[in-house]
């Protein structure tokens, strides 16, 4: 259903825009969760159930909450009233972003005719994903596991209070 797709796409993009445009940081984080939820719905539309639910579990359940915690922990530094929320070089950034979008969009539209429009729904069970993870992709899986462990320990050490005597 195309209508549902456009609705969800609009929701996602609106969430993303709100996340980068709003003044209040917590509102930004909540808008980010909307964007994440929209993306998860897009994944579901693409018949990628596992990825969609993983998206919700990881992004909404963990990353958004992490962002919120970070915002509250650094709250004393909220931008003072007078200063804008955008950087001094916002013009350049906007131009770059617009240029990137223009290039990608142009490329997509150029190749639009050659892209497939209709394919059968791929019948992929979670079991297949599991088998693939444990078979063909076992090395990446292990590397990701290592990366996550490293990131966990690293994040704890980075964010940990340094004790005065520890130096």
């Amino acid at each position, binding site marked *: 259903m195309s209508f549902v797709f456009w609705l969800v796409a609009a929701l996602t993009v609106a969430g993303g825009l709100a996340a980068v445009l709003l003044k209040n940081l917590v509102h930004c984080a909540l808008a980010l969760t909307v964007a994440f939820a929209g993306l998860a719905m897009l994944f579901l539309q693409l018949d990628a159930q596992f990825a969609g639910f993983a998206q919700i579990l990881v992004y909404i359940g963990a990353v958004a909450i992490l962002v919120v915690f970070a915002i509250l922990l650094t709250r004393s530094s909220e931008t003072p009233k007078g200063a804008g929320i955008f950087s001094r070089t916002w013009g350049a950034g906007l131009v770059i972003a617009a240029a990137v979008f223009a290039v990608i969009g142009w490329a997509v*539209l150029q190749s639009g005719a050659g892209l497939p429009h209709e394919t059968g729904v791929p019948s992929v069970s979670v079991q297949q994903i599991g088998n693939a993870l444990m078979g063909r992709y076992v090395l990446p899986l292990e590397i990701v596991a290592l990366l996550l462990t490293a990131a966990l320990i690293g*994040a704890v050490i*980075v964010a940990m209070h340094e004790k005065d005597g520890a130096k």
Partner: protein
Amino acid sequence: MTTPLVGYLLVAALLFAVGLAGALTRRNAILVLIGIELMLNAANLNLIAFWRYGPHPEALTGMMFAIFSIAVAAAEAAVGLGLVIQIHRHAQTTDLDQMNRMKG
């Protein structure tokens, strides 16, 4: 499923641009991280869309890529936010415009 692949790719491109604009223009370090998350997600959408419309969906390549990307993004967010908190503790600000010195 009548939505063509182009639709997904355009949405992903838009989201990526929005994320990039956020990362480049906002002053707050956390907002920059949010922008980066959006860009990663846009890439994920592309991966899933290509997996869905690609010639060999049963090979699961795009799906796997997206799943690993999600895991890596979680790690990235954790470390990134840890860094932001540490910087804030160090410089008492998360305003990137004021972080213009290498020495504390």
